[in-house]
């Protein structure tokens, strides 16, 4: 399987990465080298094998619904590049 320039652009859009034209070309080369290598996985017989997403099969880890102290608001906002009046300031989301 190989990846086209248009697919690289589409994936970058999905990944929310604004890429330069030169980067798009270099990622196409790099991803194709990886995908070329990844062909080896198709040879493994996985018929009837249940996929696992985790090595440890923990299920339904419950916690008591307790109130505890959380990070104070000023501290939570301190790392924000832009905040005002105890709020994160975000760019305009809905156009005029």
């Amino acid at each position: 399987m190989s990846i086209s320039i248009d697919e690289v652009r589409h994936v970058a859009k999905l990944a929310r990465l604004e890429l330069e034209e030169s980067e798009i070309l270099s990622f196409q080369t790099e991803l194709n080298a990886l995908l070329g290598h990844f062909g080896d996985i198709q040879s493994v017989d996985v018929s009837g094998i249940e996929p696992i997403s985790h090595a440890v099969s923990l299920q339904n880890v419950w916690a008591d619904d307790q109130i505890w102290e959380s990070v104070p608001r000023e501290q939570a906002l301190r790392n924000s590049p832009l905040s005002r009046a105890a709020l994160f300031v975000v760019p305009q989301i809905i156009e005029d």
Partner: protein
Amino acid sequence: MAAAELARRIASREVSCVEVAKSYLAAISQHDPQLGCFLALDPEATLRQAEAAQLMVDNGTAGPLAGVPIALKDNLSTEGLETTCASKILKGYVPPFDASVVTKLRLAGLPILGKTNMDEFAMGTSTETSAYQLTRNPWDRNRAPGGSSGGSAAAVAGSLAPLSLGSDTGGSIRQPASLCGIVGFKPTYGRCSRYGLIAFASSLDQIGPLAQNVEDAALLASILTGHDPLDSTSLNVPPISTKDLKSGSLRGLKIALPKELFDDSLSPDVRKVIEEAIEALRKEGVQFKEVSIPSIAVGVTTYYIIAPAEASSNLARFDGIRFGPRSEGKGHIGVVERSRAEGFGHEVKSRIMMGTYALSAGYYDAYYLRASQVRAVMTQEFKAAFEDCDAVLSPTSPVPAFKLGELTADPLALKLLDYCTIPANLGGFPAISLNCGFTNGLPIGLQLMAPAMQDERLLQIAYSIEKAMPPPKLPSLA
């Protein structure tokens, strides 16, 4: 000096915690400009913590490593101390809380020396993808320390810290430990809380110790491990015990050698040193058995689908809104796209792209789903191999430390080097790397793997094996 010995001298009042901290801070200011291990230091805070540790020693409330300073990989959240994951996207980020392992270290009285360099977001094998600086291997400064916990490994090997913490997603503790000639231990997945570890691939990430020897690694692991309700994947089992660490024996030990980890990818120099180590252990009464674990052959592919897939999701949170620098752009999406483009380095973008592709419509079944099935196959194959042996032995890295810049132009070649360490992450079982010799002045690491939850047994075996190897040594810093 090894951590256990240092702790003994502190406990017997031969030296104070503050004196110890000061001597390491002095070593850092003298040698770190050349080695490049540290990204952030806060000497005043280190000394305050050393004073507090001394109080514990004086009160008789000190744990086994009280007063022994430690360096932390820069993906572990430290309240009040900048934490960047060696990425520009977290430049200036000061966490408002401590990772759970950091809390445990503070309670146990280990002063924090600083934050160590790493591959950006732990994505790499040489610490060269750091957005900030190169770290040099203390054995040969023209060579890489390995990665991604390269700063943590080089700090211990360079005697800038007696202990350090790393994180291991595909070998990032064990491989740099191997290349720097020290011990690196990845516990069973779930034994160390990941709360406050900035996530790379959540189903694979595990925190663990880097140390001069197995005893130090085991003592540190006993402090780091234990159940944490703040991490829902934390196992509800007691911390690792060091009670039986020294009571093992090599005689009668059954160790499996998977032929897939001794194939032609192994450099002749590494093969020679590992085979000599195996021969030495055979003479001590260890029984070796060659086994086959066929799925190892596709381990790299499986890992490089699953880890980037998880990373592409985990790293979605870096958007320039709540932390890190924000770039100018058109509207909300424009700002996010530009902030991420300017904040992430090439390797991180590459993995986000790969992961997004592997999870995207039309490719999910061929890549992520299939990789998750192979992961199940590999876990079963290792389970079977472990059934009639105590541990599995292999090289940690197929090559000794390589030159800085030697492999940066070939990202695929660099990734293929991970094939020895990846299985323990995919299967969640514990693994440790310890030095077993040298080739041309460069250290070679031997890896041991054991079944999940057999951390104590693995450490006990590693301790016995270490005794049969040449004694651990560190390079002298000129």
